[in-house]
């Protein structure tokens, strides 16, 4: 089981915001690509115009391993967004590289989620034009 959508309600569709273009280009090729500083090498998520550590503007995009662990999670027993069927869970995944990102788990029931659970990225094509990086249990 993954997140189930109510197809009759419009999804909150992400826009391809200019500063996030490298992230979306990666997803177009089913790769999880995050921002890395071209000078000091520090990873940075979420993407932003300048490296918060060394203030370099030499941004580059690099594929990450896609492996990580569940760092935290919540379960919506009441949906607050009509396009999502409750119950559904949202997870905060900590990647091997150290960054964290919000996502959903696929094929994991809400009561099976545990902090520390090992997960790996998968790509979920939720609509013709939208693919999202999600995670499965490994």
């Amino acid at each position, binding site marked *: 089981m993954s997140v189930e959508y109510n197809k009759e309600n419009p999804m909150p569709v992400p826009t391809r915001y200019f500063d996030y273009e490298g*992230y979306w280009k990666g997803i177009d090729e089913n790769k999880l690509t995050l921002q890395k500083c071209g000078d000091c090498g520090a990873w940075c998520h979420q993407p932003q115009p300048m490296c918060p550590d060394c203030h370099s503007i030499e941004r580059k995009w690099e594929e990450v391993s896609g492996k990580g662990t569940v*760092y935290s999670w919540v379960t919506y027993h009441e949906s*607050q967004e009509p396009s999502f069927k409750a119950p*559904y869970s949202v997870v*905060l995944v900590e990647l091997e590289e150290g960054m964290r990102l*919000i996502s959903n788990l696929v094929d994991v029931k809400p009561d099976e989620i545990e902090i520390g659970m090992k997960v790996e990225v998968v790509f979920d094509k939720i609509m013709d034009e939208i693919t999202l990086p999600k995670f499965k249990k490994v």
Partner: protein
Amino acid sequence: MDFLKDKAAIVGMGIYKFSKDSDLTETDMACRSIRSALDDAGLTPDGIDGIIVYAEEDYDDIDITRAMGIGNMTYYGDVRWDGGASCSMVLRAAMAVASGSANYIVVVKSVNDASLKRVKKDWGELRSWPAAQETFYNPYGLTSDDGRIGMNVRRYIHEHNINSDSFGWVTQVLRENGAKNPNSMFYEKPVSHKDYLESKIKVEPFRELDYSCPVDGSIAFIVATAEKAKRLKRRPAYIMAGAQSMVKGTQFKTSYYKSSITDLHATEIVAKTLFEKSGVTHKDIDMLQIEDEFAPLVPMQLESLGFCERGKGVDFIEGGDRISVSGELPVNTSGGSIGEGNLHGMNHIAEAVNQLRETSTSQVKDVEKILVATGVFGPTSGLILRR
């Protein structure tokens, strides 16, 4: 000595009553609460020459100035970010009167959060924050504050091996306080810890009775110098210190990328700054008025403000005695956002003023110094007020 210490005071206060549907615009309620605050201070609109408003509502500083017929504003502006803004607004007013930029400054926040009657439906579109929301949160269904903050609270429960049943003591105490307060949405409606345990789970880890109560309503304060305050009719609430903090990696209620997502780093800095600037210590603080959008934020802040050790906040609230009106450190004596209604910290400041004036509906004896802190998981601010 700190430049601002005891230089300014809250000299007037007006509350437009909390309800589920005000049937008024936010601008209208703002003006009514300002008029009450002026009456309370014994001033007229002619005397006002400064205004600080909250930035995310329907009205702005121009609207209020025009509506109240105020002739000569010399200091004005707005502040953002929910509860994090409230103490900031008072701090800015205090700095402005202390520096001579204005004499009598209105601070106001008016919300139709319950009825949602407002012109600006989505203030978030004003900044790049929504781009992050649209890209990294909303597509996964993380679309509301309970989910956003639940993520931090879940991790807090995990790191300190907490039994989340304990959070119910916060709700019991705050609803007990709210039950005595006629402005509360829960006047004469206390709940017990047992009711908390039986309340349904909405967004796990939160039960229904962990939530604050959205309201329609407005609160206004008048800030003036300590010298001018002495000549006005109400007992001043002197501002010993004010502080703001926004730390590295801050994102509004979604600061998930810092080394810890449970440490309330900004609250720690606000507390440290307030104690340094005021020269008082934890022992001098008679009570707290602190952020309570969700019940678990109370034990988390008790730790971050330095009133107990890290991970021991839940022990502090266990049974509710220590944080009750008769306890060693009363918390949110008006009921706060959970027991009175959520006016984003403005009601916490108002209750501090009431306690110092000895006009609270849950009055604590001999109150001299109160620490107010509002906002968490984003820009955070605080005040120490004294008699």
